[in-house]
């Protein structure tokens, strides 16, 4: 079985988000970037399936600026076999990303695509579902457990009110939720080895798909700040304050 894992380079989740004063976007200059955490979980799951012997090859793909090579190297160090960077300086919408990934899937013919349920920059939670639709492959989103069972994949999903288990026929698209696994840290020898693993670079134009933006960003602003309130010194004082505030 072959797995394709799309990964995105995003602002590191520990970095404080700063909105640019001209309201044109979030300041990404000279800040630490990293692999989208949900995508790390996807890479980890692919590697675990390979370690179980179910999977023979893992291909990591990223769409983004030249520096996105770094997140692909991370995926290779975690255990992916080879990588593909589709280089672009444009910030693509999920629809365009999914169209490019569809083209990649048609070339690579994986049995399974595992990807993060959302990227922590745009927070769209859309690319996996769109890709599943365009490929006409079944989808299993927000996965907290993945099990291969013959030609079917059993996926337990985090849904409103609890969990749901679906059986999806392969090939399929799975998106990861937080509790699917805890991604490993790549060891130093594996980081060294990853430098020698194959990494291809292509241009968006090589795929001939429509990536024209449909949305224009009019402004990006900071949310209204919540001001810190008061400290109270006892449970009685807390109750009195809550009564005054009209919430008890």
């Amino acid at each position, binding site marked *: 079985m072959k797995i394709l894992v799309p990964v995105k380079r995003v602002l590191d989740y520990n970095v404080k988000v700063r909105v640019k004063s001209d309201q044109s976007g*979030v300041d990404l200059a000279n800040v630490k970037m990293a692999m989208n955490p949900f995508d790390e979980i996807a890479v980890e799951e692919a590697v675990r399936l390979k370690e179980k012997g179910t999977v023979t090859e893992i291909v990591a793909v990223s769409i983004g600026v030249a520096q996105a090579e770094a997140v692909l190297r991370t995926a290779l160090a975690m255990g992916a076999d080879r990588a593909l960077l589709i280089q672009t300086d444009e910030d693509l919408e999920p629809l365009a990303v999914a169209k490019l990934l569809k083209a990649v899937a048609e070339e690579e013919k994986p049995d399974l695509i595992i990807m993060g349920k959302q990227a922590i920059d745009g927070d769209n939670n859309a690319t996996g579902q769109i890709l599943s639709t365009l490929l006409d492959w079944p989808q299993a989103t927000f996965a907290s457990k993945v099990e291969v069972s013959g030609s079917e994949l059993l996926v337990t999903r985090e849904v409103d009110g609890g*969990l749901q288990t679906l059986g999806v026929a392969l090939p399929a698209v799975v998106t990861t939720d937080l509790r699917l696994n805890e991604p490993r840290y790549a060891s130093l020898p594996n980081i060294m080895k990853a430098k020698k693993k194959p990494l291809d670079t292509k241009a968006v134009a090589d795929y001939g798909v429509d990536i024209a933006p449909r949305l224009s*960003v009019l402004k990006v602003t*900071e949310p209204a700040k919540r001001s810190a309130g008061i*400290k109270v010194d006892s449970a009685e004082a807390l109750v009195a304050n809550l009564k005054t505030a009209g919430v008890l």
Partner: protein
Amino acid sequence: MAVLVIADHDGAHLRDTTLKTLSAAQGLSGDIDVLVYGEGVSAVAPQAASFAGVRKVLTAESPELKADIAEAVSALILSLADNYEAIAIPATASGKNFAPRIAAKLDVSLISDVIDVVSADTFTRPIYAGNALETIKTSDAKKVLTVRPTAFKAVTATGGSASVEAVSAPAVALKTRFVSDEKVTSDRPELGAAKVIVSGGRALGSAEEFTSVLEPLADKLGAAIGASRAAVDAGYAPNDYQVGQTGKVVAPDLYIAVGISGAIQHLAGMKDSKVIVAINKDPEAPIFQVADFGLVADYKTALPDLLKALG
């Protein structure tokens, strides 16, 4: 232009999320139809029909729709899409699962997690876990939106008398099989709709402690129980309790955070609450920066005291 609102319901009642999505849809158009799919639609449809401004209620039933299989739900909505300029879907786990499929088939860009309808083609939505808000204008003729319920007030005006019309679900060759559901049942209010939420963090130390500490307070206040990601990851609470960027986004009248430090991703899920109370023994915990009332104390003494003070 007409808008189709997709109803969220529990098989007997419309959820609050639907009433809030209706409110967002009113910012787009006066002509609103509501689709109720799944099971129990005959009980739920009249509730939707009773709201002022609803033109028509459509219903559809099938085993696949009942199981909320994304492929089946999106095929149903697409079969109706020609009649609408916009489709508004509550941004629940269910809605987030199928909404992008509709946008993909219509070849439009999904607009997810809308918190403000600026005009018929311009919307505001949170990005970076709510640490920034973007206002975007779409050039697509048809709009597919998911609506963040906590950002809108529920519609209240009734007196409508919309017609109810059954539609047939299109046949779909599914490659997905429903296996099982494990739903958490509870007599408490749902997190998304609760007026009061009592939420616990990793400081509670165990699943037993989580339950024994938070339940009496939640019972007293008629509150829903929530949890931080750390508490869920540690197995103290089920995943459905998680409040935060990747869990549920809530905005109750009163949010009481017990032993929660206040990681950015948790704050993203509750900072729009009307009144926030933080109980934490660490005076430097970031949760105090957003709390209206902070009590620096060990929950082990503070919660019994609080119960006593509540009488």
